[in-house]
């Protein structure tokens, strides 16, 4: 890809004169922060976007790729971050979808199953061809996506953040499969911002920053620090340093908490734990094991079915979100850009959603614009939010600065308990660093922090104590998160190991 420039109709310059070369048969990692232009570059290669200018050369010949169909015809396949599978179809049906083997006018199901089995064996990607996609784990769905691309004859495979949804064990399996693909002569482009994985899997690494290609280096010449510096443009501290926890009294007490969806599915099963002042309790677990519901029940966004939730000894179970907030709970939500901000409201207005009706923002039934502006100026300054003006809509800020708006609001409410759900999901290195700093600062100031994260290395390095959730239960609580290995925690995440109830209770 030579001199690719892409300007979106809204004026965003996504790629600026980017040149990117991949050699046949290599594993090439493409790294960069969110918004650096990696995804746009790959969408151009896969025909989903057209470049404003520039040229794509494939096997020595210039080509134009205007649709994914053309990309597939040229042997380019892409596995998206969000899988594009039909949940109610079987794996074999999904793999052949769009290029089905036919017998007369009907899909030849037996041939589809045979083709799937053959491909799966050839590349070491084990799947059950007759299972329905809805019923299989995420790791297998991803293998289905890869097989689907291979079935269409892909020689070049683009994997967009493939490990984001995987457990450590599943990641290992994926990497083994990627190596086997390369041995079979395929070329893999691996998009990521997890540097450790990049160092593990790739042959060469290209780094993008601010819509430009910073450079391409051989893995042998690279290390995590150099890559991080290339991505961010300055020195970053990957290791989290924190003073030992000064653990105070119990702030949040959860006992036998139960929750079921409207459809009657039990999501939380007798969940019990404490969070103490001045500590970070991490909750690790594969997504979808009840963490989201746990957070939302505590925050008052869902009503519990039973059990105890106490903050400083007072029950907060079943209160409204406002009452829970009044009691001293702050909440950095999981999906911050959907739930944590209102894009079209101003920064000022976003910063007061939990306190607009109180002094000093409202007096005598009228809101006071001067106070609202003062609050926003102070927080913009304190949290270094890059915003020219508090009256601008939050939607005009970059993703990282929107996150800062959420953090600024939640921390400035002076909470006793801070719930941080997936605080660095979809966040780049710079913003991750900021988020970690803020969490540790709050902890050192005596706030009790409940940290829920699917990023195992993050939750392990930030937490003082670590709990693991599996299938709606707490299956382990480790009194000291230091010295644990990811593999060990991974076994609990998958439900292969559980602590006894007595052991867990000892560590509440």
């Amino acid at each position, binding site marked *: 890809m030579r001199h690719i420039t892409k*300007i979106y*109709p*809204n*004026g965003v310059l996504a790629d600026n004169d980017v040149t990117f070369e991949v050699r046949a048969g290599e594993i090439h990692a493409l790294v960069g922060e969110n918004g650096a232009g990696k995804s746009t570059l790959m969408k151009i290669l896969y025909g989903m976007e057209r470049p404003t200018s520039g040229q794509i050369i494939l096997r020595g010949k210039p080509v134009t790729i205007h649709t994914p169909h053309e990309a597939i015809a040229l042997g380019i396949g892409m596995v998206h971050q969000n899988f594009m599978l039909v949940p109610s179809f079987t794996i074999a049906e999904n793999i052949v979808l769009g290029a089905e083997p036919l017998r007369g006018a009907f899909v030849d199901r037996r041939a589809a199953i045979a083709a799937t089995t053959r491909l799966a064996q050839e590349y070491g990607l084990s799947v059950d061809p007759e299972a329905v996609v809805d019923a299989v784990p995420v790791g297998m769905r991803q293998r289905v996506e890869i097989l689907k691309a291979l079935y269409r004859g892909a020689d070049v495979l683009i994997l967009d953040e493939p490990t984001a949804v995987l457990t450590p064990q599943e990641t290992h399996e994926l990497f083994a499969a990627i190596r086997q693909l390369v041995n079979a002569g395929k070329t893999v482009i691996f998009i990521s911002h997890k540097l450790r994985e990049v160092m593990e899997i790739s042959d060469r690494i290209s*780094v993008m920053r601010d819509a430009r290609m*910073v*450079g391409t*280096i051989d893995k042998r*010449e690279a290390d995590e620090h150099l890559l991080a*510096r*290339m991505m961010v*443009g*300055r020195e970053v501290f990957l290791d989290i340093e924190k003073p030992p926890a000064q653990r105070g009294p119990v702030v949040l007490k959860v006992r036998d908490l139960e929750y079921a969806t409207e459809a009657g599915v039990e999501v939380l099963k007798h969940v019990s734990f404490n969070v103490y002042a001045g500590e970070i309790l991490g909750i690790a677990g594969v997504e979808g094991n009840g963490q989201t519901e746990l957070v939302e029940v505590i*925050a008052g*966004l869902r009503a519990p079915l039973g059990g105890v939730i106490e903050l400083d000894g007072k029950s907060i179970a079943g209160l*409204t*979100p*406002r009452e*829970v*907030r*009044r009691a001293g709970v702050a*909440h950095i*939500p999981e999906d911050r850009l*959907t*739930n*944590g*901000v*209102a*894009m*079209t*409201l101003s920064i000022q*207005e976003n910063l007061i*959603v*939990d306190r*607009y*009706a109180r002094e000093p923002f*409202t007096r005598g*039934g*009228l*809101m006071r*614009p001067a106070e609202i502006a003062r609050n926003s100026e102070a927080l913009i300054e304190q949290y270094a939010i*890059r915003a*020219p*003006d508090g009256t*601008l809509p939050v939607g005009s800020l970059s993703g990282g600065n929107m996150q800062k708006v959420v953090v600024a609001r939640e921390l400035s409410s002076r909470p006793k308990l801070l719930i941080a759900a997936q605080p660095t999901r979809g966040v780049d290195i710079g913003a991750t660093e900021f988020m970690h700093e803020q969490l540790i600062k709050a902890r050192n100031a005596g706030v009790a922090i409940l940290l829920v994260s699917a990023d195992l290395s993050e939750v392990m390095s930030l937490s003082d104590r670590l709990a693991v959730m599996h299938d709606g239960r707490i299956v382990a609580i480790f009194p000291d998160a230091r010295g644990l290995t990811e593999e060990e925690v991974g076994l609990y995440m998958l439900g292969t190991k559980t602590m006894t109830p007595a052991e867990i209770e000892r560590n509440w």
Partner: protein
Amino acid sequence: MQATLPTAPAFDRAAERARVQQERRRSAMIDFSVTLGTIALALLVGFLVMLIVGKDPLLAYSSLLSGPLSRSNRTGRWIEDATTLIILGLSVSIPFRARQFSLGAQGQMFIAAMIAAVVAIYLPMPPVVAVLLPLAAAMVVGFLVGLLPGLMKAYLNANEIVSTLMLNAVIVLLYDFLLTNVFTPPGSQSLRSELIQPNSMLLRLTAIFGVNLGRANLAVLFVAILVIAVWALLNRTPFGYEIRTIGANEKFARYGGINTRRTIALSFAIGGAIAAVAGAHLVLGVHQRLIPGIAAGLGFEGIVVALLARNNPLFIPITGVFYSYLRVGGDIMEQEAAVGAEIVQVIQAVIILLLTAQVLVDYVKARSRRARSVSCAA
């Protein structure tokens, strides 16, 4: 490989702020010129349609565009119509700002007209009270009639478009029934109620200025107060903040601790109370009695006025005045140029289509930004 690592450029807040302000001015200019362009385009479409059907477009347009100003009583009609439409636009803008598509203004106006008339006809009252009491009674009923679909939406998740339209049908038919069987005095030649008591009649502008301004009345002065009140409600009260936040992102509002159900239900109800003011205006100011179809079709014109103003109460007077001008001009065109009012409806429809297509405005803005960045680079 030794990558050069430029340090992140310092964030110059003052310069950024100046840039943003310039951007805002530019954006407002584009909004304004797109609006004017749209109107011109719509008139052009109407022109072509008239040419095709063999009418004289010049004659038609001269009566459309100068009609409302050609005689004082026509101007009066314009003032009267604008008054009603502005109040209605304000009414609709409140639930719309909370992203609740309440279409109940139509029914709310009918029932409010009826309540105002009942009080103003049958309950003897001293001056001033004779205006305020029917108005207050109408507003209370409008509030309750709005609250019903609001509660149904907020607590039962009943689709508000369906519930408000159904409620409109019920109310309008009830109105017809009561007008025919109860309010029309026995032996009356035509289907209409008695006149309201003189104390309840809003003073007509004709009596003040000594020129014939038709049925335009004092209510027009009240409109200014209402505009400011609705603006302040939306922009200066916690309730308005709740409405706007829900409209911007309901999940966020709930997460932040806003009682979204209560606010949503109230947004319908307050819209209903304001629509009732428009209904009371029709009785106390315009017709001075109940007539068949007293508010027919008006509810939807109010929606147009609010949409054209992008639900901004400060723009609603402008769009209301503009839109009623077109409506009155259209009637006059029909009389003078024998061009059906359908042409006016064509023009109105084109304007609405183009202006409500926010995409168009965004497209123009993006193009102009690109053009500028190219010229900077050159």
